[in-house]
């Protein structure tokens, strides 16, 4: 604009360029405000774009971990319930043994106690065959739906079932049948019931049931610890996800008060440019020649 000689066309074009620049800025701000987003194209801010993509990807992973943990804690809760009931049933069985060892019990009563024991054993078998989403919870990764068959044979394979609960943590969400006594307890119980039917339970029978109880209690403690770990991780991942969401927003979203301020300032600039253009172009030498 330092040209020595200015023509009407120069003035017109300069004015037009200025107005065009103003209008472009107004349009950019308007677009940001109407979309609510500061970055709508990678070229708006390439580094914000790449952080945004990374953050979104991590948030999607976190959402998936949360879903995985819901499935995991569902399965752990079912396992916990099954083990609690199992322990309860084993204690009932132990009471029957104590009853059977009472010297005053006659042969007929021993037969009745043995029948009761067999009923409890059936309940124990059912508990070992507990399923979660149609999968036997003590069976590992077997294809069938039963962990223990009617004869008390263990069908499970002890293969681990794991869940991804965070980017670097896997939690085992099953209890292997052997750790819960599914391979031994049904046989032991059947043997004791047979012993009772044959005349009475011995001290070893009591010790065997106590051993089974302690196995179940150990499994129960293990499940509880893992459920606690899942719930802790759940809180951490959820907090991380919220943090990511707010960082995505900071990264992508327009700062509304600032954008509004900028828009008003830009509109004032545009209006004054329009007014200046109208004033300059109004007069010419011809207005003063008569």
């Amino acid at each position: 604009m330092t040209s020595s000689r200015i023509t009407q066309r120069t003035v017109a074009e300069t004015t037009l360029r200025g107005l065009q620049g103003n209008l472009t800025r107004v349009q950019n701000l308007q677009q940001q405000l109407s979309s609510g987003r500061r970055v709508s194209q990678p070229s708006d801010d390439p580094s914000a774009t790449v952080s945004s993509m990374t953050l979104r990807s991590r948030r999607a992973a976190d959402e998936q971990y949360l879903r995985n943990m819901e499935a995991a804690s569902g399965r752990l809760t079912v396992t916990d319930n099954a083990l609690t009931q199992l322990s309860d049933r084993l204690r009932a069985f132990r009471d029957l043994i104590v009853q059977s060892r009472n010297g005053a019990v006659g042969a007929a009563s021993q037969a009745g106690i043995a029948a009761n024991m067999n009923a409890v054993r059936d309940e124990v078998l059912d508990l070992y065959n507990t399923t979660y989403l149609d999968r036997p919870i003590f069976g590992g990764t077997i294809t069938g739906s039963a962990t223990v068959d009617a004869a008390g044979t263990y069908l499970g394979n002890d293969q681990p079932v794991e869940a991804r609960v965070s980017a670097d943590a896997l939690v085992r969400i099953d209890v292997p049948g052997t750790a819960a006594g599914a391979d031994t307890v049904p046989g032991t119980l059947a043997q004791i019931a047979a012993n009772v039917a044959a005349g009475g339970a011995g001290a070893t029978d009591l010790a065997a049931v106590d051993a089974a109880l302690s196995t179940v209690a150990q499994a129960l403690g293990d499940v509880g610890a893992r459920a606690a770990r899942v719930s802790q991780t759940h809180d951490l991942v959820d907090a991380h996800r919220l943090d990511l969401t707010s960082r995505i927003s900071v990264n992508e979203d327009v700062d509304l008060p600032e954008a509004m301020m900028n828009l008003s300032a830009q509109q004032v600039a545009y209006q004054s440019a329009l007014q200046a253009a109208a004033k300059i172009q109004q007069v010419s030498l011809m207005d003063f020649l008569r």
Partner: protein
Amino acid sequence: MTGFSTFNTASTGMSAAQRALDATSQNIVNVNTPGYSRQRVLTQSIGMPVAASIHTSLNGSFIGGVSVVDVSRIHNAFLEASRAAAGARQAAITSQTDILTSAQQLLSEPGDTGLQSTLDSFYSSWHDLANKPGDTAAGSVVIQRALAVADQLHSLSNGVSAQWTTARSNLVDLVSRINQSASDLAKLNESIAAGQQSGKPVNELLDTRDQLVRQLASLAGASSAMDDLGRLSVNINGVTIVTGNEWQAVTLSGADDITAAVSDPPTLSVGAFTVPVQSGSAAGLLASLRTDLPSLSGSIDGVADRLVTAVNTVYSTGYAPNGSTANTFFSGTDARNITVVPTSGTALAIAAQPGTLDGSIARQVGDLAVDSVAQGVLGSPGPSVGWRELTTSLGVQVQSLKTAQSVQDAVVAAAEDAVQADAGVNLDEEMTNMMQYQRAYQASARVITTADELLDTLINRTGKVGL
């Protein structure tokens, strides 16, 4: 000097003023004509005899007055050339920016519709399947999400390819415009030379020719040089397309499909010579056709290839319900031919051991969502990293092109202002000139009246003193 010669002198003044008014009116009416250069009448005084005597004037020889030497066109070839060069650079940046901006829109990043989010959903579906191995619905979701990823890769690849084709047809159109302008310019060279030889005014033709040169610069970065006869020869970086009244056609050769763009890049040539286009719209188009779009397409293929390799590497370790192993999940090697192999959600090979109902391989595929896991499987960065790199590098390129564009816009504006400052019409100036010429005409007319009165005194009043 006598009364009679005064008539002649004054009449030359009147006709000179009239010629000047003609030029002024031409300037005023063309105030907004693009490429118009203002014109000025150059006058020269005709010498008066050293000593005026009655004899010299009575001989009837013409001895005084003004003559119009030339109607000159105010024009600075240097300013015009720098305006043309600035415009050529601007056209190159603009055409490249336009193509890459729309390529960037294909990516639809950042957002929930880009490939990144499709990939994330794809990986998520594997985790869901791992939570419920053997579940038909979860298996179908995996297949559907995989198809969505493949479809998005296909449409990205096709989109880039379609842009390449559009850019190439733009280049075909541009080449025909170059040839049209070159042929027009050759004809103008001939008319201008003929006009100048016969002394006819050629200013308007010169303006038209400058416009053509500017157009050729903006199309292909052409520059011009004038020969001794006032004819312009035009070359594109040393390859001549117009000399005198002859012109040579520019032709486009090379690939007409993006797949062959690298092995057989599109090229402009004149006869046997390759035209080294460095500015003008053609340069922007050629840069996109030869480098930008093929490399973008190659990067998208790279993302597809990494995805296929990573997923298959993990998936092949799994056992299907029928006991088969070493299966493939994706087939294909690039974004064009990637396909999903399994068709049923029940037959996925996601068990770590044969004959079990296990989801650990599905979990491992889902874990590929984490960049470090994908890196571990591939030994090189995974598909998501590749996709982010591609998006960033395109974003950075478009951003810097846009910056260059606004800088170049300012350069062109300054160059245009300089041309206008020199050759443009200023109405105030023309009005002032008009008054000046009008007064000159009036004054010359007044001289004739005065000379007439002198003669009247001489002829009618002489000897009548006292009557």
